[in-house]
């Protein structure tokens, strides 16, 4: 008998599986992602290119667009896994069963992040395939400058992989915020504000403020990982720099959460 990291991971996995909200949140995550990819790509038309010349529509980015909406489901799931323990006061049972709080929070984070990564990868692949199918039907074909893209092509695969990683790291960030605030509504509000605030602000602020804001926003940095065409309205950063920024968000939230959960009374 031992309450070690492996036992903590197993226990958190049972917890995650045995409440209904997990399934609902994952369903929302997948459903909304696919719905918005469908909406974006089914209404798109070839604007940039003339016959025989490549257009500059980013068909990879466009087909993955649904995850920016669907991610809310993953964020809510991640927040709830920790804040619901505080709202039900079950956290005391959890921490009495495993007084090594960093191990517990690490296990919880690992379990949720893994689930979001696995489901997120499936969602990214589905969005890519569905998006490509709709775009081809909408005229994004070789003759109009859009050669067919396959999932295993370098840029497409990178976009899907980075999109998946973004989702996993965003979930880690959300758990961190949940563990710091310990309050469901507060944590969800803060996560949404971090995700959507810069998007709203971008349209209202002068460019010298808006540009770095976009670059260092969670969403902007995540989006940079999926840009495959050089366009004027691109986020001005490379995919790997974007990944670094997203990782920093997750790391800071997680580390602060680890310190907070150790220092505070349960």
């Amino acid at each position, binding site marked *: 008998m031992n309450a070690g990291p492996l036992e903590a991971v*197993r226990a958190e996995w049972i917890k995650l599986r045995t409440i209904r909200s997990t399934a609902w949140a994952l369903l929302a995550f997948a459903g909304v992602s696919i719905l918005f990819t469908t909406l974006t790509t089914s209404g798109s038309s070839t604007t940039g290119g003339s016959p025989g010349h490549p257009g500059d529509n980013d068909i990879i980015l466009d087909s993955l667009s649904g995850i920016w909406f669907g991610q809310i489901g993953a964020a809510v799931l991640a927040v709830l896994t920790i804040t619901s323990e505080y709202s039900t006061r079950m956290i005391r049972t959890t921490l009495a069963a495993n007084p090594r709080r960093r191990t517990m929070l690490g296990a919880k984070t690992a379990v949720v992040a893994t689930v979001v990564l696995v489901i997120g990868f499936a969602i990214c692949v589905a969005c890519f395939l569905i998006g490509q199918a709709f775009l081809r039907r909408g005229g994004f074909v070789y003759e109009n400058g859009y050669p067919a893209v396959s999932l295993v092509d370098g840029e497409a695969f990178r976009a899907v992989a980075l999109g998946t990683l973004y989702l996993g790291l965003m979930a880690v960030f959300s758990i961190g915020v949940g563990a710091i605030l310990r309050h469901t509504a507060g944590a969800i509000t803060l996560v949404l504000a971090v995700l959507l605030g810069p998007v709203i602000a971008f349209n209202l602020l002068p460019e010298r403020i808006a540009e770095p804001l976009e670059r260092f926003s969670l969403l902007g940095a995540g989006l940079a990982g999926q840009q495959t065409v050089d366009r004027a309205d691109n986020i001005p950063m490379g995919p790997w720099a974007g990944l670094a920024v997203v990782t920093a968000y997750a790391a800071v939230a997680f580390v602060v959460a680890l310190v907070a959960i150790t220092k505070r009374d349960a």
Partner: protein
Amino acid sequence: MFVVQATIEAHDLSKRYGKTVAVDGLSFLVQPGRVTGFVGPNGAGKSTTMRLILGLDAPDGGEVRVGGKRYGELAAPLSVVGALLDATATHPGRRGRDHLRWLATSNGLPRRRVDEVLRLVGLTDVAGRRTGGYSLGMAQRLGIAAAMLGDAPVLMFDEPINGLDPEGIRWIRGFLRSLAAEGRAVLVSSHLMSELEGTADDVIVIGRGRLIASTTVSELLSAASDGRVNLRTPRAAEVMALLARAGGTPTSTGPDSITVIGLEAARIAELTTERGLPLHELTPQRASLEEAYIELTQDAVEFTAGGERT
């Protein structure tokens, strides 16, 4: 019988929340093989102390050890301390059995323990229901089942009688006694001393975070009873004179009733029998546990009737 020393030892434990002193220099020892009542008015610091024992809150001063170790050092805490703090603190959407499953898994306990403790508390039939639909009594039983998962030598129950029906109360009293009989240390909190009458061997009484008494129930009772004996006799005057000569202090409490201090009931019976004086009643007065407790805590209740802090 147990590998781990079955004790809870608190030394000079203190805890403040802001300006409120919840626990103030508390020291006590909970011993194996005994049910220890942990009693005090609401707000006396009982739940805070239990949170300190479980390492949920960090003390501002002093320390508490369970089985000789600090809680955080325990490799598999559930197999050392079983605790019921707050029975309703489960996720309402999770089934009772699943709640016990994740708990057992977190300490590497065998899965059969889940079914064993469900049977132990008589909850097998509703184990498949979500805990949000449990009555308070069912929630208490689930909490007790959770505390029993690790078959721990030290057990701690915060107000376990709350919410139980009379049948449940009788059950838990017998259950607590049987746990102590197995050699476990059992700490049971209550704000009503009467709930513990006939159950607890020892009592730790606290008020406003401070220790008021740490004693055995029998000592507490004899300290509170001043050895009064009530008797009724048709020949009151003669009996009073007799008892006064024998060294007692009789007081007339009615035409044929007398209260005596300073003589035991047996001695009174001998004396009156020798003289052929008839007795219709002879009753030694024992204080109830509740009376003893009220006497103890009179000065320590959080607020006096005037609402001012004593």
